[in-house]
């Protein structure tokens, strides 16, 4: 049987303005793969619903999972204030991760879509090019890709670092090709990356996001539009939490 468990905070670190890195000691570590997420619950019981946050690093040796998140509301504010030794309830790992494929891969992260790319880049067997998009020179996590990826390309909205523009602009400018592209970020970015992949004939996986309740596929709160009839409800809706969050870019509407 799966269980909700109480994880212990090992470390908390501010990486950039409003962006925090939280390391949790948890048995969920054993089962986690890159691209999956964990549900983190507020210690304030008036906040009922868990916050789904993607896994940034899996450290089997220390039995820890690392998540990197942006503070967007009261729940994530509370998580950002957790300190080593504190405990927090979690459920997971949840969802399907990225299939590890290809001799040559491009991992693309935009903003708070960067974190899940780190563990993926580390686990991919072939050569990895990491393309990361940020608003400005607050390049959280970018330095940590240096060991995991052969190339690290940065794009910033304000042009302060790297390519002035989006990750797609950076991919075009560098004429990147690969066997497979993995992407996580805001929907317009995913749309652009999927289009790039389509034009170049590259297989592309995207990680989707939606407001969730249960996180296990029961409530049907977090569906995204699918191109084909789905297996669960036989309409064109896939459950982000259970069928995803990773999908082939060709199976969902972006």
């Amino acid at each position, binding site marked *: 049987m799966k269980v909700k468990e109480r994880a212990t905070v090992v470390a908390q670190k501010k990486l950039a303005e409003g962006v925090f890195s939280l390391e949790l000691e948890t048995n969920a570590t054993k089962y986690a793969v890159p691209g999956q997420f964990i549900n983190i619950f507020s210690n304030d019981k008036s906040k009922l619903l868990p916050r789904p946050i993607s896994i940034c690093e899996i450290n089997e040796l220390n039995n820890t999972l690392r998540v990197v998140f942006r503070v967007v509301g009261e729940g994530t504010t509370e998580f950002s204030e957790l300190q080593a030794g504190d405990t927090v309830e979690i459920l997971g790992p949840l969802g399907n991760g990225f299939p590890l494929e290809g001799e040559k891969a491009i991992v693309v992260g935009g903003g708070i879509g960067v974190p899940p790319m780190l563990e993926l880049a580390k686990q991919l067997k072939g050569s990895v090019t990491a393309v990361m998009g940020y608003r400005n020179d607050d390049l959280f996590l970018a330095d940590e890709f240096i060991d995991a990826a052969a190339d690290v390309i940065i794009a910033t909205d304000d042009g302060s670092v790297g390519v002035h523009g989006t990750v797609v602009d950076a991919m075009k400018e560098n004429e990147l090709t690969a066997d497979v592209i993995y992407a996580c970020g805001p929907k317009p970015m995913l749309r652009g990356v999927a289009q790039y992949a389509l034009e170049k004939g590259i297989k592309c996986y995207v990680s989707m996001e939606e407001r969730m309740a249960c996180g*296990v596929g029961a*409530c049907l709160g977090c569906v995204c539009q699918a191109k084909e009839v789905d297996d669960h409800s036989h309409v064109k809706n896939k459950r982000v939490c259970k069928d995803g969050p990773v999908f082939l870019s060709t199976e969902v509407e972006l």
Partner: protein
Amino acid sequence: MNTKVTIAGVEFQNPIMEASGTFGSGMEYSEFVDLNKLGAVVTKGVANVPWLGNPTPRIAEVKSGMLNAIGLQNPGVEVFCERDLKFLEQYKDAKVVVNVCGHSAEEYIEVVDRLADEKRVDMLEINISCPNVKEGGIAFGQDPKAVEEITRLVKAHAKQPIVMKLSPNVTDIKVMAKAAEAGGADAISLINTLTGMKIDVERQSFVLANKTGGMSGPAVHPIAVRMVYECASTVSIPIIGMGGISTWEDAIEMMLAGATAVSIGTANFYNPTATLDILNGMKEYMERKGIEDINDIIGIVK
């Protein structure tokens, strides 16, 4: 110690069910709880054909509660029978209550007819109270004449006992309970969610794509207790009580108010083992209080 309760001739090993729509057909939560230990699995609403549901966002959190506007996405009764009922075959100790939804009387009846000879279906719960679909659903549940009429129509077709699921979004729920009883309902269940709204003050727009959603969770529990109490003193058919039950105390409270069985809904989302945790707490309470039979506490607070 006896935890068995009987509703319309159907015996449940204990009064714990889960509320329709929060638990699928049990498949997902079977990884967390042994479904065989539940009184019943109450399925998500099923229609005659697949329903797409509403656009997203479908979920919003509010203080001590949540809003949902799923819009009854479901695979339709054919797939439901072939897949979900088949899956539930392996959990013989739990009864199966199928929640039925429709846009019109004809659609409800089509589902009820299709389920009539399915042996795994012990009871039907007729959803005349979903606040998130425009036609059918709540439209039937806010007019006593319509409640009585749809109850009578469904009852004439159903081979299993029928439970009418009532909406709290009415002036006087007792009137609806009486209408269901007059139409021949074997039992009633309440409450469905309360219509609510959340506005994002930064974006100055609705959080839910549907604008409104059904509110559930601990915040609605006192309203549910009051309504179960009111209905229990008005009708003589059994009541399945629900609305914000998250602890054994809440479940006992609901039974003291007059519910023969209780359903756990939103609590599943933040405690996947809520159903069995609550059952265990109820048993401990019975032991501590020297209660031999759970039926002895139903509706005793008057």
